[in-house]
């Protein structure tokens, strides 16, 4: 019987995997949960590109249809809303801040939107006009707030930079610039900030993580292009877990890599593909309060949850 043969085959294979490929792959490639239906109906995902957990472990996901959808930790659909203007490209940055607000980098409308958790628009940063002058954005990619409530917005385009705004949305300062030198960026794709107000920037096309203080002073940088452990291939998202380690979503390696804050690799999860435990150009990840990582498997239109 084919099923019996398959059953026995898989039994043998699963028994042999740790011997053949080493424990790393066998252990890390299995997700705890895979969910998501491809489509544009409410609760379905159309190339999701960004996600964040709130304090209740509800997952906020923005996809190409300019929707922000809210799911519980296991993928049960709760509610959704749309960003004010529609395009065929969605926001590429989303953060739930310390105050429970949902901060959305509305990339192709050159602004940052601040919502409450139910989708009521509170205010926006940037006048929605594309520009490289202070206070305007080219392509804002992500936004976070520090302990004082100041907004840090990364953007790429004409100016690959980070702009800082007061809690009221007034422009304060900026740093960065397009380039490969330390402190410069080529497509800073994501931001995260730790409890000491250190800012972690996923410098995507430089394949590295840069760490700054709130004044823009470079504290550390690490990472180089490659597919070996410890190397990065297009870092599209970075998130700090409850254990204080960094999870980096690698777009081109189709994997998630865990680092210590000083850049030591602690392991990788995932490989390119369409099966469970396989990713197809993931754009983002989010770490919940239990320390499990939900990775946004963008081109597979789904979410996979796993633990390192």
């Amino acid at each position, binding site marked *: 019987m084919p099923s019996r043969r398959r059953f026995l085959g898989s039994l043998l294979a699963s028994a042999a995997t740790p011997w053949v490929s080493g424990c790393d792959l066998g252990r890390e490639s299995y997700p705890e949960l895979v969910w998501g239906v491809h489509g544009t109906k409410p609760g379905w995902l159309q190339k999701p590109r960004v996600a964040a957990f709130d304090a209740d472990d509800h997952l906020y996901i923005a996809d*190409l249809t300019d929707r922000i959808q809210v799911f519980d930790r296991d993928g049960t659909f709760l509610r959704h809303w749309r960003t004010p203007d529609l*395009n*065929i*490209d969605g926001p590429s940055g989303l953060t739930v801040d310390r105050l429970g607000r949902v901060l959305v980098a509305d990339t*192709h409308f050159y602004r940052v939107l601040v919502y409450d958790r139910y989708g009521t628009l509170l205010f926006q940063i940037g006048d929605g006009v*594309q520009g490289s002058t202070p206070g305007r954005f*080219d*392509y804002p990619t992500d936004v976070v707030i520090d302990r004082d409530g100041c907004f840090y917005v990364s953007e*790429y*385009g*004409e100016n*690959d930079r980070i702009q800082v705004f007061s809690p009221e949305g007034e422009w304060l300062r900026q740093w960065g610039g*397009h380039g490969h030198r330390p402190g410069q960026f*080529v*497509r800073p*794709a994501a931001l995260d900030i730790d409890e000491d107000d250190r800012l972690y920037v996923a410098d*995507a*096309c430089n394949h590295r993580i840069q760490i700054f203080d709130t004044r823009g002073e470079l504290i550390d940088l690490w990472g180089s292009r490659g597919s070996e452990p410890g190397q990065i*291939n*297009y870092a*599209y998202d970075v998130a700090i877990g409850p254990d204080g380690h960094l999870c980096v979503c690698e*777009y*081109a*390696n*189709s994997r998630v890599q865990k680092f210590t804050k000083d850049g030591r690799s602690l392991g990788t999860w995932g490989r*390119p593909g369409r099966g469970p435990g396989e990713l*197809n*150009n993931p754009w983002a990840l989010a770490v919940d309060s239990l320390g499990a990582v939900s990775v946004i498997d963008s*081109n597979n239109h789904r979410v996979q949850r796993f633990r390192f």
Partner: protein
Amino acid sequence: MLDSLGTLRLTFLEPWWLLLIPVLLPPLVLLSARSLSGLGSVRRLIAILLRGSVVTLLALALADPQLVRRNESLTTIFLLDASRSIPGDLQGPMLDFINRAVGQHQRPGDRAGVVVFGKESKVESPPAPYTETLTGIQSTIDTEYTDLGSALKLALATFPDDSARRIVVVSDGNENRGSAYEQALAAAGLDVQIDVLPVDYVYDREILVEKIALPPDVKKGETVNINVVVRASAPARGRLEVYQEADNSTIPIDTLDDVQLQRGVNVFRIKQDITDPNFYTYLAQFIPEEDLRRGYRADRAMNNMAEAFTQYRGEANVLLIEGTANEHESLVEALRSKELAVTTLAAGDVTGAGLVGGDPLPTDLSELQKFDAIILANVPKDAFTDQQQDLISTAVQDQGIGLIMVGGDRSFGAGGWMNTPIEKALPVDMQIPSLKVKGKAAMVMIMHASEIPEGNYWQAVVAQEALKTLSSYDYAGLTYWSGQEAWLFTLREIGPSKPAMLRAIDRMTPGDAPDFNPLLVMALRGLRQKTDAMSKHIVVISDGDPAAPTAQVVNQLKAAKITVTTVLTAAHGNDLRSLQVMQQLAEATNGRFYNVTNPKALPRIYQKEARLISRPLIFEGPPPAWTPTMVYQSEPLLGLPQDLPPISGLVLSSVKENELVEVPIVSPNPTGQLNPVLAHWNYGLGRSVAFTSDAGQKWATQWAGWENYSAFWSQVVRWALRPVDRGNLTVSLRREEGRIKVVVDAVDAENDFLNFLQFQGIVNRPNRELNAPGESVELVQVAPGKYEGTVENAEARGNYFVTLGYRGPDGAQGVLTTGLSVPYSDEYRDLRSNPVLLESLADATGGEVFSWINSPDGRPSGERTAARADVFRRDPNVQPPRTYRPIWHWMLFTAAIVFVGDVGVRRIAPDFARMRRNVADALRTLRGQEVAPRDEYIEKLRSRKREVGEQIDRSRGATRFEAPDVPPPPSTGASRPTADPGSRPDRPGDRPRSAGEARPGSGLGVDATPPKPGEETYTNRLLKAKKKVWEERDQDRGKDQDSPR
């Protein structure tokens, strides 16, 4: 078949094996009763029963028993007619009927589905336990026709396998495609019942403009009678308007106000003078009086219109399409001076928005009818759509219109015309052997996911178009984002790998690349290696989203003389920055920048890009100028002098290998090969000419001043003109019942019948597929001078053209073209429903015919109708499906177990009394009572043992033999080969046996009583004998040792 519980039944596929049971059972019982007589009656009975069961089970297994499960659920699929013939106000009740019928009659487990149909059928909702309420029709279908047959077919294919099936047709029964009855017969064969609910209507005040009758050809100064035929189902009043359409403009020519229509056919005749040669379309529309019109649905007004066309052929009319406006003025002048009417059109230029500027080029055969030849003068392929190219080729092949391609840097291969229908029509091929090629082009395409609608599709289309436009000796490569930067195929000579490249492109799904740099660097490295490439080019398509290329990479590209064309697919709206990135990259590298606002422009952009770099087909010396050679005077060159003016360039091409091709003028340069300058041949009904140098602009400048310039060109063009009809043939087309009848009346100038003409007829339909071959029509002579043929399936709306080439027995020949317009589909001709067809469907399948029940306001009520129509009823005609499961192996298994039971019954005799006692004892022990000793049992055992012992002794006595006396064994110390029963052990591990244990009777029979002294047992005697032997042996050994060796 045996009845069993519920929906389960048992059946046998080979029941004759069951005969074994009556044959085998009686002898088995008789034999067993004899052979098992020693078992006692109960065990014997059980054994016989078990044996009988084994045999019965084996016989059953041989008969192949099957467990049959009947599924009692029913699936009903509604076929909902959505065609235009259904009056709009009936659609609501039809939907309501379906919703209510499902709601009221569906039983648990039943499923309902809906298929809607018009020209095609679609599953509106698949069979499911129905929960959704239909509020309208979501599927998009062509409602211009009704194909009930295909809907039945789809429904039959949609049914699930595991339930009974019924179809409910809700339609007017007016089918104009397919055959519903055939499908109903198929349904009947599959036990599918068809119920019908005919939708009744009569358009009692309907008006149809049936047709406009007018002659297909008119002559100069002739007055045309335009006959408008209007059919009315009731007397009516209104206005009749007639328009004339020519050259894309419509003018009203007559309006008849306050027309009184009689019931039946009304004919209105309008006279029209035609003065200018042209192709005219007439359109007639009847507008009923306002109050009359209000009662009808708007779309029924469709049949209030009809159109027809005619043409007036004047002097020969030539269409010249050029790449740049007024580029060929001298040629046009020359032709006009020789009494050829020339219409010039300039093609537009390809930009991101599509084709910009220029005149609209013909898109329909009717627009080409007034021309006798088409000149493509230095115009590139990308100015034409595939349809337009096909149209021109068809006009030549099927309608006899001439085609002339005049050279230039955007013509022939240099204009990207290779692998097109136009190339097929011309006497030369654009591809030339690679030996002749002066330089190659190398092109790398960089594909980035574009998020425009159907982005991946367009990416594949553009890449394939570019590949098709490049020559086979050019280099092509394609890089894209496939999870990371990668080559889809590395930069290589296209050559034979073109099909493989095209296939790879089909499978390509470019991803969202984050950065331009790595892709550009890959392309740069690839291009640098191709040192023999004359032009190196990169085409990037992107939404401008990736990180911009660094100045360093841009400088490297510039240094390597690589041009980069950027194609921005504006996914993000009016995005300044992506526009800048793309524009700057193109400008910095001398490429072109396209901001694509219309994806349909994309293929042309890629064709143009590929064409611009693939220029090795142009030869411009050295030498600076040379004289082409007239090899011989072919028909178009008759009367021209042999000496031709020099030329300074031409587009390389190769002559088609076909005996029809004539090459009267060739170029001696480039040397070593045949370079056609003028070539011509017949293609289908038409003729085509290739002139590979230009018409006096750049390469043939001296020709413009040549005294024979006008004569040369006018003779070439005249040769190619559509053949003139020299006979006196009249063709009429008549449309009836979905077909077009072609009738030719042939008489000569003396009004004698022309008999035995041979016709080659070609039909061009309005719905003809691109690149489909022309469809032929057979004409047969039916009477003296009368020929007839039929074009089947002429149902599509639009213009039909019939071109007839004929040849008489005397060698006379000619070409006739005529046409007919179908103004609206047959859907609009039906003025009443056709319940008879629907009833026949129900009749064929044993279904029911429901009828509408009106609500109090007199309108059909879906609710009331549904209440009477049980579409989920269980009908004996509707057979529920059965699933069969073989169970013979279970029978065999049971037989094996029963067989073991049979053996057991014969071999094991259970002591029921003892079992009972044991149970009683156990119970007593449990209660704490003392269990009575088994005296009786032990006593019985002892006496039995004694009995057996005596028996053995008796038999021993019979076989006793006398042995010599041996001394009794020493009582201490010395080891013995064996011990007496009851003696103490001499091994430490042996358990000392107590006196009580060693009491008589505890052994096994033979030593029931201890042997008396002096009385020797059999064993003792044996032992003595053995001992004696050993002693003798010892003595012998001692002697041996003492003796000297």
